[in-house]
């Protein structure tokens, strides 16, 4: 079937080619011409739309929009984090100052110094019990997830672990994001169990009596710098990277400051906690566009993000232990930053530095950044799918245009061809009206012409005209004569073409020449003369 159609198309093309050779013009039908014109129009319009979209930047809008979205999200979150961490730093310093004053006063009252606290559980418990309310109040005010006090003393210095064990208090708020809660969400993570029991607090599931300071930069660093540097308290607080306290299961960041009394004695450290859950719930980026978007607060060097010490927030939290401990930052021209890890991890996004310390702080060299990232494949998928959507829409538009052109050209040409068929019929005077004004006018014109010819032939001396006609027949070339003879036998042009095995256009050319030589203007006039000659008994051979 398809092969048959192909053969037909090839034959048609061959015919058109042949006719073009013979007549010097491309013999395309009116319908085909109109169809091609309309398709050209459709192509022009689609191209125009593409040019307009290119000029207005619609094609690049996807990338720009994504960049803007991430940058806005980053600005928004970084402002909040910067403000919150700043406030918490200030509160740590205030808490430390007030705490140191209060503990110093108590030690004076009891006439003991720091060394007197060692191995003295009763006094330690009394001091920490005394500071419980202050600590709890500070915890609520700070909206952090925990508050801690570590004194540079241990309950029992006879124990093996006493070198790395320090007495203190660690109160945790398990639900810092709930503003209004009547049931206790406060638990005791470290400290004397009696403090919890007297205040109706449960012990944390991973409670312990004292702090294990064997690997505790939050204790050692402020203590060390307080000894070493003569800086004001506000330059001695420090933030830890995210870590897990020994024996616990949740990652936290601690802000700690040394407890320094008026004599310059360093009593211990204190500070606040930001838990991974608090961070996650407080700084969740909008994940309606990218479900795997996440926000990272991490220590950084020039071109590296240390995810091992980072806090994460996002709709999809990456399992931290499967993520590379470091991500390399690479800047791409006019595009996103790329963050690449060692296990084929690639993220795109942006980052901004976050100032956690004043410039003259003892820890000013610790640099932190806040980054918003999305897995590279997610951004690429979005861009590819939007490009595919556009390409699909254009293809669809073109197809619809071609279909419409086909319909329109068919519909437009149909009355014209039927009009022409009417004209070709013999009796123009009895033809019905078509729906097209111009065709009607043409039919009327041809009908009147035909009538005039009849009148003229009737009025004119038939013999003179007939004689001239009969004479002129002899001037016809052999080819024209054979066409003429077939007209005499009442054949139509189409039939003649068939009989003589010539194209219709060739017959038309012959017919035109016959008309000129016999001095007639139409087929009707020609047939009229022929019938008149026959009636007059003249020989037409």
């Amino acid at each position, binding site marked *: 079937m398809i092969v048959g159609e192909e053969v037909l198309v090839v034959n048609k093309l061959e015919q058109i080619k042949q006719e073009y050779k013979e007549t010097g013009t491309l013999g395309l039908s009116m319908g085909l011409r109109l169809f091609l014109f309309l398709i050209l129009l459709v192509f022009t319009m689609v191209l125009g739309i593409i040019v307009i979209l290119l000029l207005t930047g619609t094609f690049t809008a996807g990338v720009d929009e994504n960049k803007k979205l991430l940058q806005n999200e980053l600005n928004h979150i970084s402002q909040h984090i910067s403000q919150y961490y700043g406030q918490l730093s200030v509160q740590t310093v205030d808490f430390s100052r007030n705490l140191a004053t209060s503990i110093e006063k108590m030690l004076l009252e009891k006439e003991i110094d720091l060394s007197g606290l060692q191995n003295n559980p009763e006094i330690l418990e009394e001091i920490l019990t005394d500071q419980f309310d202050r600590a709890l109040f500070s915890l609520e005010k700070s909206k952090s997830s925990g508050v801690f006090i570590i004194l540079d003393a241990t309950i029992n210095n006879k124990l093996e672990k006493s070198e790395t064990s320090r007495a203190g208090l660690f109160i945790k708020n398990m639900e810092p994001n*709930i503003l209004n809660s*009547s049931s206790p*969400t406060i638990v005791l993570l470290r400290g004397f*169990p009696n403090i919890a*029991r007297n205040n109706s607090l*449960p012990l944390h*599931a991973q409670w312990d009596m004292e702090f294990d300071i064997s690997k505790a930069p939050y204790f050692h660093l402020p203590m060390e710098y307080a000894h070493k540097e003569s800086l004001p308290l506000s330059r001695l607080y420090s933030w830890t990277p995210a870590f897990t306290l020994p024996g616990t*299961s949740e990652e936290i960041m601690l802000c700690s400051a040394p407890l320094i009394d008026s004599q310059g004695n360093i009593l211990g450290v204190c500070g606040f906690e930001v838990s991974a859950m608090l961070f996650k719930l407080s700084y969740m980026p909008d994940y309606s566009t990218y479900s795997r978007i996440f926000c990272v607060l991490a220590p950084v060097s020039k071109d590296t993000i240390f995810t091992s010490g980072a806090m994460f927030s996002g709709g999809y939290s990456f399992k931290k232990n499967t993520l590379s401990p470091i991500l390399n930052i690479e800047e791409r021209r006019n595009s996103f930053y790329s963050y690449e890890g060692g296990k084929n991890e690639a993220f795109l996004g942006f980052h901004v530095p976050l100032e956690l310390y004043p410039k003259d702080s003892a820890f000013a060299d610790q640099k932190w950044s806040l980054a918003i990232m999305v897995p590279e494949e997610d951004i690429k998928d979005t861009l590819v799918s939007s490009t595919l959507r556009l390409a699909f829409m254009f293809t*669809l538009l073109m197809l*619809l245009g071609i279909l419409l052109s086909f319909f329109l050209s068919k519909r437009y040409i149909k009355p014209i061809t039927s009009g022409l068929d009417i004209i070709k019929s013999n009796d123009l005077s009895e033809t019905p009206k078509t729906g097209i004004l111009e065709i009607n006018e043409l039919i009327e014109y041809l009908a009147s012409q035909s009538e005039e010819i009849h009148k003229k032939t009737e009025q004119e001396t038939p013999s003179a005209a007939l004689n001239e006609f009969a004479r002129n027949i002899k001037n016809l070339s052999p080819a024209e004569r054979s066409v003429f003879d077939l007209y005499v036998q009442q054949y139509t042009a189409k039939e003649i073409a068939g009989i003589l095995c010539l194209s219709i256009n060739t017959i038309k050319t012959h017919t035109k020449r016959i008309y000129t030589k016999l001095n007639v203007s139409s087929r009707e006039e020609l047939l009229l003369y022929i019938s008149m000659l026959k009636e007059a008994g003249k020989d037409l051979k």
Partner: protein
Amino acid sequence: MKRKVLFLFTFFLIFSLLSACQGDTLLDPKNPVTLTMWHNYGGQMRYTMDEMIDEFNGTIGAEKGIIVNVTSISGSATLHEKLTMAANNDPGAPELPDITTAYPKTALILAEKDLLVDLNEQFTEEELAKYVPRFIEEGIFDNKLYVFPTAKSTEVLFVNNTLFNRFAKDTDISFDDLKTFEGIIKAAELYYQWSDNQTPHIQNDGKAFYIPDSLFNLTQVGYRQLGDEFVKDETLDLASPVFSKIWDLFYEPMVKGHIAIFDGYASDLAKTGDIICTTSSTAGVVFFPPAVTYSDNTTEPVEYGILPYPTFQEGEKIAIQRGSGMCVTKSSKEKEYAAAIFLKWFTQPQQNLYFISSTGYLPVTEEAYGEMMSQEINNISDKNIKKLLSTAIEMQREYDFYIPPTFENIDKLEKDFENKIRKIASDSRKEYLNHLKDTDSKGANKWVGYTAKEAQKILGDL
């Protein structure tokens, strides 16, 4: 003919366009739905839960287009309060999550506000038939399944074997005594005396032996064991002779310090060696630390024994059925469908057993409870959980399980009952200690507290 072809072509084009825009399923892996989740699996259980959620997100979730995002891990009491606040739209309350663990009492509050999905719509009958029927039954209200069983628990007796053996060596008490409440009371009295004798220079500093983690559960199960119902028509039946029996058995040891009076988790007292045993939820196993810390910061490694729930003498072997299930809140069709996929995955025997093997919860499907669990026990490294699961299998075989009634006021009733009992007992204890100061210990034995009838009067307005 040509027209028909054109019509079909146009129809095909429009159809492809529409299907490209809408998608043919509820979920699209390229555009995943994010389900927020609250759960009460804190502490060590959090590791397991995090690991399982990561596994889901990386496998089925990635394949179907679902991301589970945990936005709260709280204790069950806090979770209850948060959910109630969110359901009531209280100021400062967080938004309800898509999936949450909840006890039936919490689910009832949410269901009454039409906030929960009827999970019957998401599971076929065939699927539901795979679960232990009484676990499914617990989550059904008004023929609608609101609480889907994900991991259940019962109560068992946790015993600090290390401390108990030290005490038992010097007395004629053995583990057999711990099979009944009467035996526990007897051991408690002896332990108080024994611990008091450890410090001859200090009088009356004996230690408590036992504490029930939930007095209310103990009373409910005690009634059932002795053939009665504690909660009748949404009120407490204090007039029952069973109440007198329980009161008589427990009140005096509480006043005398043999049983601890404490408004908190029993595991808190276990951490500091202040009790020897407790009836507590199997899910509490991870809260019992491997070492006891004493007041001078010395620590002692301890081993726990996990025994079946004690019975009253002449009582039947009945224990409570506890444990929250998971509820799905009403949101969009996509999210509800996605949540059901997560629940199905989470409770498949393989996942279910992995979860229980590190948390102390009990599995929920018949398949997981059977042969599979017996095999799984051998692969568990945590000694306590191993013991716990063996005990659970034993109890599953020998015990009947009591499902506490669920109605709106039950939570308040429970709190009021426990607070009042504790108040009566602690006031009496103060009086008793004062009495001790004024008289010799012989005289103190003549001290008389509240009788069961007097207690009924005090508790009467519950």
